[in-house]
């Protein structure tokens, strides 16, 4: 009796997806990062709120609104009966810079004080399902510094995400 050739993938082919996911985990080259490099307001961690200050001499701030952000990266696979492997992946970028600017009525007088910054890595394996996830969570408050000023700036200037602003430079002594 002759065997009938089938088009079903061999077992080693079906395990290729999980194997690749496992090898990617061994390399450990993918990262999830929380930063606010595009923000025009200080996003401060720690007790010292200004350059050249100490914790005791940092100027007081008032009017705080809570702010939070989270970045995560996840990936994994699922083995579905009769269907094969399904790999999945998801990630998002930090948005604390845009959130801070949208919440601050005046970027020249606003700043963010970070109260919590937590990184987490987690993995789950359930026979035909595996998922790996890295997360960085940020919590803080948007605060108003009454004495805050932007100082001189060049023209034109760029804001978050590289947007170039062409509004005129205020003359010295002019009210903002």
């Amino acid at each position: 009796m002759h065997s009938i050739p089938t088009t079903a993938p061999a077992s080693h082919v079906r395990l290729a997806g999980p194997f690749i996911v496992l090898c990617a985990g061994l390399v450990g080259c993918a990262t999830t990062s929380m930063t606010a490099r595009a923000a025009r307001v200080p996003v401060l961690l720690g007790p010292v709120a200004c350059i050249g200050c100490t914790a005791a001499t940092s100027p007081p701030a008032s009017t705080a609104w809570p702010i939070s952000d989270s970045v995560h990266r996840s990936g994994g696979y699922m083995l579905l009966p009769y269907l094969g492997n399904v790999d999945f992946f998801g990630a998002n970028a930090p948005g604390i810079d845009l959130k801070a600017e949208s919440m601050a009525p005046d970027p020249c007088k606003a700043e963010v004080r970070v109260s919590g910054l937590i990184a987490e890595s987690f993995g789950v394996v359930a026979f035909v399902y595996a998922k790996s996830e890295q997360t960085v969570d940020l919590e803080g408050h948007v605060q108003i510094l009454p004495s805050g000023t932007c100082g001189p700036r060049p023209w034109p200037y760029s804001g978050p995400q590289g947007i170039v602003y062409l509004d005129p430079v205020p003359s010295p002594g002019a009210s903002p």
Partner: protein
Amino acid sequence: MNRVLPLVIASIVGVAGCAGAHLEITATQSRYAISMSQVVRDGSGRLYDHHSLEYVGSLDTGRTRLGFFYSALTPLSTFDISEDVNAQVSAAGGEAVVGLTVSASDGCDILNNFAIFNILPLWPGCVPVTVTGDIVRRRSPLSAAASSSVDTGFATTSVRRAP
């Protein structure tokens, strides 16, 4: 198919395991200002950006922590970067750290996703965390004016003076 599905579900539930860890990053004893953006204020409230700040070095530190009981317990779950910040900023002659970036890598996936073994509550998971940033100090007014048309390279966006 009707007989296979309960077996698949039972297998999924029966052999499910997980592992991981978490780490809180703090800077409670820092002697320098640390900003996750590229700007920082001075004592008078004036904002300093990459035109008025001079890059003098890089901050680079990190820790890896183990977690147990399916990530519920992470001993030494607080990482205070103050000591590293104080030492590296002082060594570089800087005044503050800007562009602070906290990264968690997938370098622990082999532990967190170790099939069968991570069913055990004592199987360790872990989280590798890297903290980087730019060490800066204030420019003198003259050098700040001269450099305002030059991209210093440590900012993600560059601004050039109009002709």
